[in-house]
């Protein structure tokens, strides 16, 4: 598994733990109220669960396991783009997720969404040519 996938996957596990914790607090509050303040966590819960957990796990696994261009571990396309995608998706996640707490202006939230979208473009560019009928097994 390449190092960038390791970072994607370990981050996704951290976000899974965080997302399930925030979700458990919100669900608990529906049954046994903790107070309205807990609902400020909802945007962060959604962002952490969908982008932090699911999207990062998919990105990391795809970069690791899709057919490679050749025999060496390095032949997975541009690893620098994968690292950039990792940075952008995490920056975007926190920018969007913290909007309820910090009260960012709308432009900052839009910038966060833009960072996530750019991360998706970079990952698509990297994976596109590796999406083919045959290839080498992952290492």
């Amino acid at each position, binding site marked *: 598994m390449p190092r960038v996938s390791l970072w994607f996957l370990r981050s996704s*596990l951290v976000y899974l*733990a965080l997302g399930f*914790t925030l979700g458990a607090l919100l669900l608990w509050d529906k049954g046994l109220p903790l107070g309205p303040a807990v609902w400020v966590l909802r945007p962060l819960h959604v962002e952490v669960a969908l982008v932090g957990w*699911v999207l990062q*796990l998919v990105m990391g696994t795809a970069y690791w396991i899709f057919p490679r261009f050749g025999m060496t571990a390095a032949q997975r396309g541009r690893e620098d783009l994968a690292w950039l995608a990792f940075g952008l998706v995490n920056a975007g996640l926190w920018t969007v997720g913290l909007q309820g707490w910090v009260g960012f202006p709308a432009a900052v939230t839009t910038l966060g969404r833009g960072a996530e979208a750019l991360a998706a473009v970079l990952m698509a560019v990297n994976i596109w040519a590796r999406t083919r009928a045959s290839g080498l097994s992952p290492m």
Partner: protein
Amino acid sequence: MPPVTRWHVKLSLLYLVVALGLGIVQAPDGSGGVLFAPYVHLLAVGWITQMIFGVAYWMFPRFSKERPRGSNELAIAACILLNLGLILRAVAEPLHARHATPPLGALLAISAVAQWLAGMAFVINTWPRVKER
């Protein structure tokens, strides 16, 4: 494919069908009504997360030669707790939204704890299997 993976994958397919069915019957004005939160979580937890739990347990790098997939008991516990929690939620949440009672509220709290424990069990079992070699 190990048995716990088969349970996860088959259950995730069932949740997908149920969730999309729920999507048909929930409030047609698009507001979702009391079924919206169960609908979203049947998709996000029941389908996507559960599918990931199953496939990751099967396909991720080996933990060790003796225990290639880590703890089978922890994986089974995660499977049971995730599904117990999710089913409790899917049943209790709409009922509680229509007519809140302390027992239904307690069921939601139990559902929250069960799903949280499932998530932690998966993280603990999977973390050491995410490695470069």
